[in-house]
């Protein structure tokens, strides 16, 4: 194969689109991942397609996924497959999924899911947009294929509302992480977040969506908090899906928040959206990935796929910026994160930052993890207080 032919081959590698379903009959569904359904829903419905949302990830969903997938595959795939099956049962006929070939097993998800679903006898059209080649064009093409919408205003409306919703909900989440350990009335932050989740979901007009983020900030500012409380901060790092999906990570953020620890997550859907969808010429800031490459360079010299580099880079970044601890979560047998798991002990030793490893799979009991998290919380709290005392003593001597 010569070079141009080869490129063409790889371009068509995943583009197997089915045109047999009429546009007006299309019912669109996509797998759950964090708050992705808010933005995707806004976009797809503004382009005029019907939507079926798969139900929330629960034990039942996991059971369906485990039953229909092979033993060795990773947890996110099992849940994705369950989402597809449940959506198809509810009347969906078009499945959307993005993928990034060449990272890890993630690039094979759609291929496998397609095979499995066909074996199960479902009829559907899988629409895949590839995140690694011409991002914006691919995405637009995929939506054009599904909706056949000509109207550019609708595209504008869809992308604008979708983006603003993603930014608003992520801001709300960040503020909730900040407020929860400091709140005076227990449960305020959680209630506020849930309220805004509903509001954000229901808002449809472009102008209202643009205001959402500001309104979220103002509303969270009203919650009474204890500003002088000593709150240790923890970075939550690890695999993308597990971080964003509250069922899989067993609501670890809530557990930590209630123990009086502020959680900071480096991976947010909106950040990723901003980076992935924007053409690289317009992206002037140092992206998250570039920052990670810079900080991880003592430990890693090359990217190895997945979020391994991000995990290591963020750990070093956290240690240099006064963060008190790292919680590293990963699904069982995740290949890139196992490499990170091997690297992190050395980072922990050299940068002097405590790290807790949590491996999640379908059998993990919650109680065992909570014990470990509580012990870790105690450790970093004591460490923080000790550090503060030492600093005070030093200052006193200086005076």
């Amino acid at each position, binding site marked *: 194969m010569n070079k141009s032919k*080869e490129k063409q081959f*790889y371009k068509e590698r995943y583009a197997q689109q089915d045109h047999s379903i009429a546009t007006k009959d299309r019912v669109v569904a996509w797998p759950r991942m964090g708050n992705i359904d808010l933005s995707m829903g806004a976009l797809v419905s503004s382009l005029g397609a019907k939507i079926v949302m798969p139900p929330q990830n629960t034990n039942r969903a996991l059971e369906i996924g485990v039953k229909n997938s092979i033993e060795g595959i990773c947890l996110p795939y099992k849940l994705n497959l369950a989402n597809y099956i449940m959506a198809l049962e509810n009347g969906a006929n078009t499945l959307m999924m993005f993928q990034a*070939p060449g990272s890890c097993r993630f690039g*094979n998800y759609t291929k496998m899911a397609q095979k499995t679903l066909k074996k199960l006898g479902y009829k559907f059209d899988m629409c895949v947009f590839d995140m690694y080649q011409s991002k914006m064009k691919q995405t637009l093409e995929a939506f054009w294929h599904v909706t056949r919408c000509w109207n550019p205003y609708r595209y504008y409306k869809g992308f604008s509302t979708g983006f603003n919703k993603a930014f608003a909900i992520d801001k709300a989440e960040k503020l909730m992480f900040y407020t929860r350990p400091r709140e005076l009335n227990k449960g305020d932050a959680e209630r506020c977040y849930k309220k805004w989740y509903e509001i954000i979901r229901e808002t449809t007009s472009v102008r209202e969506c643009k205001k959402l983020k500001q309104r979220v900030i103002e509303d969270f500012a009203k919650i009474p908090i204890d500003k002088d409380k000593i709150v240790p901060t923890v970075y939550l790092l690890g695999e993308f899906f597990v971080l964003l999906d509250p069922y899989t990570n067993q609501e670890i953020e809530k557990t930590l928040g209630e123990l009086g620890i502020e959680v900071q997550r480096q991976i947010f859907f909106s950040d990723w959206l901003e980076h992935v969808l924007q053409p690289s010429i317009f992206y002037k800031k140092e992206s998250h990935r570039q920052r990670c490459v810079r900080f991880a360079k003592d430990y*890693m010299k090359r990217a*190895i796929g997945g979020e391994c580099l991000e995990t290591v880079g963020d750990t070093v970044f956290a240690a240099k910026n006064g963060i008190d601890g790292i919680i590293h979560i990963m699904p069982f047998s995740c290949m890139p994160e*196992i490499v990170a*798991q091997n690297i992190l*002990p050395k980072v922990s030793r050299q940068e002097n930052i405590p790290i807790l490893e949590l491996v999640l799979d379908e059998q993990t009991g919650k109680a065992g993890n909570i014990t470990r998290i509580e012990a870790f919380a105690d450790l970093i709290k004591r460490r923080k207080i000790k550090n503060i005392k030492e600093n005070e003593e030093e200052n006193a001597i200086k005076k």
Partner: protein
Amino acid sequence: MTLDNRKIKKIGIPRAISYYTNYPFYYGFFNALGVEVVLSDKTTAEIIKNGNKYVASETCLPIKVFVGHVVNLLEKGITDIFIPSIQSTGYKINNCSKIRGLPEIIRNVIDKPFNMIEPTFDKTEKLGFKQFWVESAKSLGITDKKLIKQAIESGWECYDNFRMMTESGINYTTALNNALNGICEKKNIELVKPISVVIMAHGYNLFDERISLNLIKKLEKMDIKVYTSLNIQREDAINALNELDETQYWANELDLTATAAHYLIKNKIDGIIALSAFGCGPDSLMVDEIEHHAKDFGVPLLHLNTDEHTGEAGFITRLEAFADMLLRKKRQKLKNIEPEKDDLSQTEKQKILLSVK
């Protein structure tokens, strides 16, 4: 410091991962550069135990073995160790993360001071084959372009000889020894055996006698003809994959899916044996893929999982059961062809089996 002082005279290559398929090339290349190659010892329980000490428990067996071999080299007093990072062998055809990140793992888990020669081979990022070797030679203190070119050629020669011998049916160990000694011989007589299987496995699992528990020899003892990925040409493998309407996703998919696919299509085998290390990510997908096709062809598949605790007895039982099943299946098949010759003695049946082959 002059260039000559920096020259490294001895280089250690761990007997794991890429050693098993690429060693003839490494040997030819480094010898032509005038660098002595030192290998680590063959895999033993001790080496696996040493590797286990350093890495996280979830890491797969081949990586643990690799770390054990690096430790073994360090114990031998070798300070320059060749640990390549083979990222991708084609545009977006990547290796498993753990193989891509081998130097990263070794750098961070082993505390002893040593010099790592870590060239990168990444077709996606346009870091090609030549650059890979120029980089390795540079970290050895050699920058003479002519010499490097010659070394690459002699590496190819050694490797081509090795492949030619394995493709003609010579077994792995003999072919490797011959290639290293500069001998190239061909074996054209194919032994006919009652049943034949193809093993789909990574070279580093299959040809490591400790990890695979001598799988090939065990099968040959049971009078089974064994095909491996080294028996077919690269082009054939790619064609077979295309014929099954699959696309290559993993860099080492040719060793597994494509090999099995080739023999499936050519209808040369009675069964497939998949050997994979526990927790291997790519294997879980590739075995599933071929299982799907094997069902269509009506060929049984045995999936063997190994880890550091695998007991030999359980292994043998499963192999024997599988071999028995294959033999019975074949006999049934022959019966259907010639129903009138139903009541034959064992030896006569054997003869028929052989003649049909």
